[in-house]
């Protein structure tokens, strides 16, 4: 059997399905439901077996359309930075507020992706987010929590 990344993904999915199946068997159902034709664990159990079946088949059968990914040409660094910025954005958005974190997130993302036109970067972050906030909060009446703007009295 030729080992390639697709096979490794299939193996991981096989292990994941086995774990899912084990967890499905652990689901606590009501005593009167234990022997019912269908209870809360029935469907997940079928799904667990289906996952084992399809990933098992993918593991065993030959893979004629092997996908080759040229890892040297992949931009891991920029992607990683972008994910990290998104995580920081997610972590601060509730505490700091929508306006400031979103504007800083956009500004930082433009910067790390190689943009250096500062005025355009500024216009497409702070004023852009303010306009978008006005659209959501002011016109469409969608609530946006923003402790920062509330603390400086811009938002009620």
């Amino acid at each position, binding site marked *: 059997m030729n080992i390639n990344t697709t096979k490794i993904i299939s193996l991981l999915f096989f292990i994941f399905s086995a774990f899912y199946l084990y967890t499905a068997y652990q689901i606590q159902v009501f005593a009167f439901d234990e022997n019912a034709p269908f209870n809360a664990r029935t469907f*997940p159990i079928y799904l667990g077996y289906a*996952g084992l079946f399809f990933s098992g088949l993918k593991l065993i059968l030959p893979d004629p359309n092997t996908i080759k990914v040229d890892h040297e040409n992949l931009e891991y660094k920029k992607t990683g930075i972008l994910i990290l910025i998104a995580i920081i954005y*997610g972590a601060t958005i509730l505490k700091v507020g929508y306006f400031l974190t979103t504007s800083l997130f956009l500004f930082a993302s433009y910067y790390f*992706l190689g943009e250096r036109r500062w005025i355009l970067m500024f216009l497409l972050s702070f004023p852009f987010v303010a306009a978008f906030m006005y659209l959501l909060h002011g016109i*469409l009446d969608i609530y946006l929590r923003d402790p920062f703007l509330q603390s400086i009295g811009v938002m009620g």
Partner: protein
Amino acid sequence: MIEGILIGLTTALTLQNILMVMVGCFFGTIIGMLPGLGPMTAIALMIPITYGFDPATGLILMAGVYYGAVFGGSTSSILLNAPGVPGTVATSFDGYPMAQQGKAGKALAIAAWSSFAGGTLSAIYLLFMAPSLSKVSLSFRSPDYFALMILGLTAIAAFSSKGQFLKAMMMVVLGLMLASVGQDSLSDITRFTFDNMNLTDGISFVLVVMATFAMSEALTIILKRNDPTSAAKQVSLTELGSIKINKEERTKMYKTIPRSSVIGFLIGVLPGAGATIASFLAYGMERNVVSDEEKEKFGKGSVNGLSAPETANNAACSGSFVPMLTLGIPGSGTTAVMLGALLGFGVQPGPRLYMTNPEIFWSIIMSMYIGMVILLILNLPLIPYIARILAVPKNYLIPLILFFSVTGIYVMSFNNFDIYLMIGIAVVATFLRLYDFPMPPLILAFVLGGLMEENLRRSLLLSNGSWEFLWDRTLTSCILATTILIVLWHIYKTFSKKN
């Protein structure tokens, strides 16, 4: 039906809804133009904005985005030979050679008129077919629905997987597994939450769509160093030539459009098939029916070769609404996203939608037609200007996509956990995409997961735990037989390719 049409027109022709169709068409055209960002991404990005509207308006906006995205895909196919969406790949076969001959404006006009005609004709087919299908589908019972969902999932796996059926089936199972997280709908027992309160209500549909499409699409573009806008910088988007279509070309289109619209609509109705297969089939059929002289022009800038796929892909879009509106089962990944949004609005699509929410049912159908008219009015004169948007650098495009994704989740839950979960799913989806694991089957399975379990529960309880319900009713057996045929056809195709 006349009453329904009037209800639909009254709803669709309000100032707000016309504005929504216009915004949807415009936004969809822009997103659809950018290679890699298809209608699913466009609709997913629109979901947060629809929160503020009533269901009919929200859906009208999404339908406009859908049509706009398909049309936008044609523009990049013709101008750049870089199809924005898979459904417009066949458009580039003759559209791009036409553009290279200095007839880009004409090619775009043919595409616009063909899309308009295809969409209009299929909206008329839908107008007559949907109510009758709704009545027929009232006779559907739980086993039939369960079998139909199996058919839909198998079909989308078979058709969307580019020869990777097992990978697509793994994605189907993963989608169903994700849908099983949270409280069981009947007993309220929590499953797979690992004592995390944030998972008690399950994983949000918007979160999964944003993560697997919008966000992972953006990460893939960065990871693969793709620049969807780079090709636009190499062509002159202002020198498009005349957009006038002469009499001879019009005569050719008159013959092509009706037959391609029928193919497109029928293929669109089939679960999982969609615009891509419809456009290829229409292109292939057109090549077979035209004269030998015209056949020679195919691939070199044929009017028939451009008109056929453009008509068919738009007709298929309308067709894909049939199973969603009448059975509550989406026929494609895009309609699955729309179904999820409908469920979010508290509207249950299916045969009863026709009776319980006629204003939604009819206004969607009516807004499709209005959308077609607006697309034509909006896109024909604006083509040269819209095309310039293709040159927006990815340095701005990617952060904006990420921003819309995070905003969508933030306004929905005000919860850090959901944002982390979305980033996590997006990273996994990006990795899976690298190895050609298709995402539409995952979304369709995620949307259908709850309904599928519900129908299986009812069927098994009624049959006392026996699986005989699968062949007790003729309708159930027929649907399952079709599923088996699709699987067998796929196995045959795979082995015949190998040999």
